[in-house]
């Protein structure tokens, strides 16, 4: 009998102590039937990628409010590529200016959700895109 779940790693990279948003998302995804692994604050890109591999997640959700996204996100994407991980959907959320969004998407982050996004929209996005990559 099949008993599958979408598994999501919610991670907070870098020096950023605000995790209210990450917890709200984690809770919403849990309520949508997903298994959410929350790793806590101040994660290095290496910790995030290694955790994602061990947990065999379908999705990595990065939450950042510190402004360091253009430094940290590319590192995470590069580490995933180096380790030949191609089956994880990477999405992000937080305070990210529009001009950076375009560039981050070009790098391989599939979607970026800014403050005010309905959690339903994020759930839908994951469900639609999780098996297409």
């Amino acid at each position, binding site marked *: *009998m*099949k*008993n*599958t*779940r979408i*598994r999501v790693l919610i991670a907070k990279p870098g020096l950023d102590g605000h995790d209210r948003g990450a917890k709200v998302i*984690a*809770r919403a*995804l*849990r*309520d*949508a*039937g*997903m*298994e*959410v*692994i*929350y*790793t*806590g604050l*101040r*994660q*290095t890109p*290496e*910790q995030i990628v*290694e*955790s994602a*591999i*061990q*947990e*065999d997640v379908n999705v990595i959700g990065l939450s950042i409010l510190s402004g360091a996204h253009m430094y940290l996100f590319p590192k995470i994407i590069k580490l995933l590529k180096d380790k030949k*991980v191609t089956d994880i959907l990477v999405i992000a959320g937080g305070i990210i200016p529009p001009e950076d969004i375009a560039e981050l998407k070009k790098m391989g982050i599939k979607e970026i959700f800014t403050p005010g996004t309905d959690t339903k929209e994020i759930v839908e996005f994951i469900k639609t895109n999780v098996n297409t990559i």
Partner: protein
Amino acid sequence: MNLSERIRQGDTRAVAKVITMVENDFQQAQDILKELHPYCGKAIVIGITGPPGSGKSTITDRLTKYLRKMEKKIGIIAIDPSSPFSGGALLGDRIRMQDLSTDKDVFIRSIGTRGHLGGLSRSTQAIVKIMDAMGKDIIFIETVGVGQSEIEVIKVSDIVLLVVMPGMGDDIQVIKAGIMEIGDIFVVNKADRDGADKLVTEIEMMINLDEKGKRKPSIIKTIGTENVGIDLLWKEIERCITYLRDSGQLEQRRKNRIRKEIYDLFQENWREMFYQFIGEENLEKEVEGVLKQDNDPYFAVQKLTDLFKKELFKGGR
């Protein structure tokens, strides 16, 4: 190289993928588990259980760091509850183990219970096996935060630590049946808090009521967050394992584990056969009948059993 060979060489991705397979579709994973079985049985399996918030994850983290200094390879299965409503789960045990994630000789997997009661997930025993075959020396199973009767961890572990903390109720809680009976070692964590010594005394008094001739569980005080008592705890674990081994109890426990595994696998096959030979539509028909009071569940089971035997004899529908 196939998956089971990759697991035996410690390939993290292969291990992670096969654990997912075990969790999602047990039947499919059985062939790989079969290939791994001859390489299992070397690891020591330590169950860590106790009420929510007593410090199971922190103690696991500290013990792991302590053991890493001796270059032991560690596997950790961290279980948290799945929602009975959405089926989702929030798996948060890694928060206490952050710096372990980049240590290549530590493998951590967070698991939801997915409807299984007893403090573990259905797949726990198979995951132990995978970690054993990948070469881990010690495997920790951290259960969900337990109440009074989630004691399944004793059936899959060589040794059980029960992590408790002061302030959980009066001394009657300590002498109740269930969870308080399964610890080989009581870890009184948060020992810097008021009431720690009182709790130790209460546990001692309970232990002294145990029948003579049995090994009395030991009590170790720890302050997990400050790394206090961890070395003593490990020495006690080693002492306990030696005792269990010399007295033949370790073998007895492993025997029980194998018995449970065979029984569980059989039940799993049985469940599959139920759907194969009886089918959901026949089950639903009986459900309707009982709901309308045309029938009772005992008679329904008899009917389904007869149908099952008939189909089995014919070789399937």
